């Protein structure tokens, strides 16, 4: 980790050329598209991007068009981290053999929740254990949105998806969202962070930290999906804010295992009265609509309970 933190202004970011270009086919209000654009604003030099199969892969690379102003590779759904491993290994040996025309090339691997929590976790865990120098970005829209809103290990408790519909007998997803960032911290990797696009400066700073760190870095970014969440396309960034304010998605970072809350969540920790009720966040999202029916009152309470429990656990970790 470098000692000097990157200093930037909104103007710097605005003036920096986009590397994730306009013209992609993402939906109106797409959280991940905003996330990608911001992340690519944080690059520090030559960069290669690899990506798992998913929404953002599909919307950004429809041949013969591309939204990528950097070299970009997609191979399969479960391979974002293994692709990064191969790219990083190739760069390392090509540099050693004087066949690389750059002093250093950063590697960013993107994957959605399916490509991270579920089908991609083996490759991710392996790549991190091997210590490849790359930044893995999980853009979490909390279900398999590209293929029609199927539940994933990242889908929150209670959410209705096409494979966990809110039925008469089963009210949406019964299981809980896998604490993926904590699982990555357990890998004893140098840098793990969570971020929300509402707090865009925090997000950009964390991307840069992840790139600067030597070895693997993991960034979990909250990425609202109006199509899959059945929410208002104009409110995606608002939900990204509410998720943090309700502690459904606190923002924090772990540097060499030392966990600390990032400012937006720290302010809530310092003034607990500012913590909003999860219902404030759930309301308005079609995927949680059934939870507000009287017969599902317990489900709503359970979401509040698990949110509080996880928040308390995080507070303890952050000392």
């Amino acid at each position: 980790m470098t000692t000097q933190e990157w200093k930037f202004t909104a103007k710097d970011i605005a003036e920096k050329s986009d590397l994730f270009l306009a013209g992609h086919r993402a939906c109106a209000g797409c959280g991940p598209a905003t996330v990608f654009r911001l992340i690519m604003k944080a690059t520090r030099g030559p960069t290669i991007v690899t990506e798992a199969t998913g929404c953002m892969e599909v919307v950004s690379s429809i041949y013969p068009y591309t939204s990528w102003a950097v070299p970009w590779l997609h191979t399969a759904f479960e391979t974002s981290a293994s692709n990064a491993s191969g790219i990083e290994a190739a760069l390392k040996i090509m540099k050693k053999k004087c066949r690389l025309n750059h002093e250093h090339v950063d590697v960013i691997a993107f994957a959605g929740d399916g490509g991270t929590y579920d089908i991609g976790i083996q490759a991710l865990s392996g790549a991190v254990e091997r210590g490849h120098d790359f930044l893995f970005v999980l853009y979490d829209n909390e279900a398999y949105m590209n293929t029609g809103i199927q539940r994933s290990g990242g889908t929150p408790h209670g959410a209705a998806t096409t494979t966990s519909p809110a039925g008469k007998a089963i009210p949406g997803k019964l299981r809980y969202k896998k604490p993926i960032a904590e699982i990555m911290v357990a890998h004893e990797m140098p840098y793990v962070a969570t971020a929300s696009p509402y707090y865009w400066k925090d997000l950009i700073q964390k991307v840069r930290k992840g790139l600067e760190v030597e070895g693997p870095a993991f960034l979990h970014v909250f990425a609202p999906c109006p199509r899959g969440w059945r929410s208002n396309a104009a409110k995606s960034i608002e939900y990204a804010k509410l998720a943090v304010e309700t502690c459904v998605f606190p923002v924090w970072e772990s540097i060499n295992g030392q966990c600390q809350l990032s400012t937006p969540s720290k302010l809530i920790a310092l003034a607990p009265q500012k913590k909003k009720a999860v219902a404030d966040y759930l309301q308005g999202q079609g995927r949680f609509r059934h939870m507000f029916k009287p017969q599902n009152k317990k489900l709503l309470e359970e979401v509040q309970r698990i949110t509080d429990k996880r928040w308390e656990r995080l507070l303890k970790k952050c000392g």
Partner: protein
Amino acid sequence: MQNILKQETMALAGDQAVAYAVKQSDVDVVAAYPITPQTIIVEKFSEYVADGEVETEFVCVESEHSAMAASISASVTGARAFTATASAGLALMHEMLFVASGCRAPVVMAIANRALSAPLNIHGDHSDSMAQRDSGWIQLYAENAQEAYDSIIQAFRIAENLDVLLPVMVGLDGFTLSHTLENVETLPDEAVKKFVGVRKFSNVLTHEGKTAPFRLDPANPMTMGPIALQNYYFEFKRQQEEAMTNALAVIQQVNDQYAKISGRSYGNGLIEAYRLEDAEVAAICLGSTAGTIKTVVDDLRQEGVKAGLLRLRTFRPLPVEAIRSALTNVKAVAVMDKCMSFGGNGGPVFHEVRHLLYDVPSRPYVLNYIYGLGGRDTSPVELRSIYENLQHILQTGHVEKPIQYLGLRG
């Protein structure tokens, strides 16, 4: 043949011969998973890495799926990439094999050909690579450890040829070759390095309108492995087929060029015709079985039987013309399959050979022998019975059973 280089004889098992060839081929990245089932190739190569004998990034991945993903990504970044696997490991790679050929990544992979589960069996047959037949990989099958060594070196030249740019798998029969010690003539390090050369790249038009080498390079951004829909996907696939056709000539050229430095060639690189010129009865097989059949053919010849053998060294691309031409005078052919195509009316090699003989002016009788599954031994006596049956068919003009199982109980 004055330029043939002085070579060193080494006692190597097939796996070790492969690892030694990789060591000499200036490979940049080896991403491999050593198990499912284990082969010595990766272990031996790890020793070279640990002893500082190679300039290679060795990525000890957590599965064969990741092995192939990392090989592809290293290859498209510009590295020369190699991996090795067998059986279940190759099956696990299946999805990624199509990505490798589709991305035109010239990865080279050794396959210690072994049976697929269930029931679990770690011994030799061709079920694993035959199941990858349509994955867009070039497939070479070695007869012995010497050929495994030679073919790995040649494979880099074939794969990286700019008219080909396809991945190559080199099959060596599990245990029969992979674990059996043989004398292997090895070329000097410098000669192999020179033969494989430094990897070249095609120049392509980038989306920025520049011409640049086809690889991931921040100086010339390219989007690789994109989504291509109904309007373009088909053309991508047709180009792969053209590359396969080009490979037919390239495999022959590389076989000839290699012969000039080593003194060794394998037929024309595509097929090896053994005593076929005037043969009336012949077998067709892949891999190490050819060695045994050759002795059977020699015995039969001594007895006055016009017997021959066609060894298919290159299975993909299928050398249609070479096979037709080699079988011109043959009246009865037994196609040997060390693999089953369940419910498919015979094995895969049988299907293909019989199909390419459909258009010849005088078609021979074509039978299928399925043999050796799960490493079952195939004896010279059994192989001889094949030729006896072919002779019987020629005498009677009648094929009783076109598909037979050799050495099967009951």
